[in-house]
C-alpha cells in the first residue's frame, strides 16, 4: 500500500497500515490449552492430537478472559471438565512468571484434581489462594 502516490504534496513520511500491537494471548472461549498434570485424559488428548479447548470461563468480569488462577470449563476428548489456569502466555504483572504455553490442571466437579502430580513449575503467587488451590499445590512438584 503506497500512500505516497495519492498524496504527493505530503512530506516524505512513509506510512504503512500494519498493526504493531502484539497479540493479546487471552484465554477465552475456544482457546486451546495444555493439560499439565499426569491424568489419563490429559495424556490421551496429547497422543490423539485433540487438544482441549476452553468452553467457558468462570469470571464475573465483562470480557470473559481467563487469568492466572481462574476456574475454567474445558472440552477434552468429548468430555466437559473443569480446570484451573496455572500458567499464561499473556504478559503478566511484575514478579509473576510468564509461560510459553497456557497451562491448565484438570479438576473434578468437586474440586479434587484429576491427576496425581503436576509436572511443570507452578507460579508461587497461587499459594495465597484458598480453596481448591491447596489441593493443586499439594500435587505440584516445582514452584517458580
Amino acid at each position: 500500500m503506497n500512500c505516497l502516490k495519492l498524496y504527493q504534496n505530503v512530506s516524505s513520511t512513509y506510512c504503512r497500515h500494519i498493526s504493531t500491537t502484539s497479540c493479546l494471548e487471552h484465554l477465552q472461549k475456544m482457546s486451546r490449552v495444555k493439560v499439565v498434570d499426569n491424568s489419563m485424559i490429559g495424556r490421551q488428548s496429547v497422543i490423539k492430537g485433540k487438544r482441549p479447548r476452553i468452553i467457558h470461563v468462570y469470571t464475573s468480569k465483562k470480557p470473559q478472559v481467563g487469568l492466572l488462577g481462574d476456574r475454567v470449563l474445558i472440552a477434552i476428548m468429548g468430555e466437559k471438565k473443569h480446570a484451573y489456569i496455572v500458567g499464561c502466555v499473556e504478559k503478566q504483572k511484575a514478579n509473576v512468571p510468564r509461560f510459553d504455553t497456557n497451562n491448565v490442571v484438570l479438576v473434578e466437579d468437586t474440586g479434587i484434581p484429576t491427576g496425581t502430580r503436576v509436572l511443570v513449575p507452578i507460579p508461587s503467587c497461587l499459594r495465597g489462594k484458598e480453596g481448591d488451590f491447596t489441593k493443586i499445590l499439594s500435587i505440584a512438584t516445582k514452584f517458580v
Partner: protein
Amino acid sequence: MKIELCSFSGFKIYPGHGKKIVKTDGRVFQFISSKAESSHMMKRNPRKINWTVLYRRKLKKGQSEEISKKRNRRTTKFRRAITGATLNDIMAKRNQKPEVRKAQREQAIRAAKEKAKAKDAQKKANKAASAKAAPKQKAAKQIHSKAPRVGGKR
C-alpha cells in the same frame, strides 16, 4: 527475598526487576533486562558476549587480584597427643637418633624371624601328625606381616 541471577548475563536480579519465563519443557529463565532476554531469544551464546559474567569468567577478566591474594595461604602443621601416646611420647619417638632406631629395628627383625622359625617348626610337626589321617590338605596360606615400624609415626 531471594536475589536471583540472570540466566544470560549473570547479574543479580533484585526483587522488582527483570522478567521470569517458563519454557515449554519446564525450564525457568530469569532475565535482568530486555537486552538479556532478547539476546537469549536470539540464541546468542553468553560465553561470546563481552558484557556477561560468563564471558568474563571464561576469559578470566579482572580476576588477577584475587588469585595473587590466595597464594599466600599455608597450612600450619599441628602436633597433638593421641590416645595411647601423649605428646611427649610422640616427640621422644620423633627425636630418636638414627643409630638407636636402627638397633631397635634389627632387634625387632630378629624377634620376628625367631617367631617365624618357631611357627614353621610347629607346622611341620602338625603336618607329620595329620598326614596319616588326611593325605590331601590345602597348603597353608603364608601371610606376610610387616615388621612394626620403629620410630613412631612419620
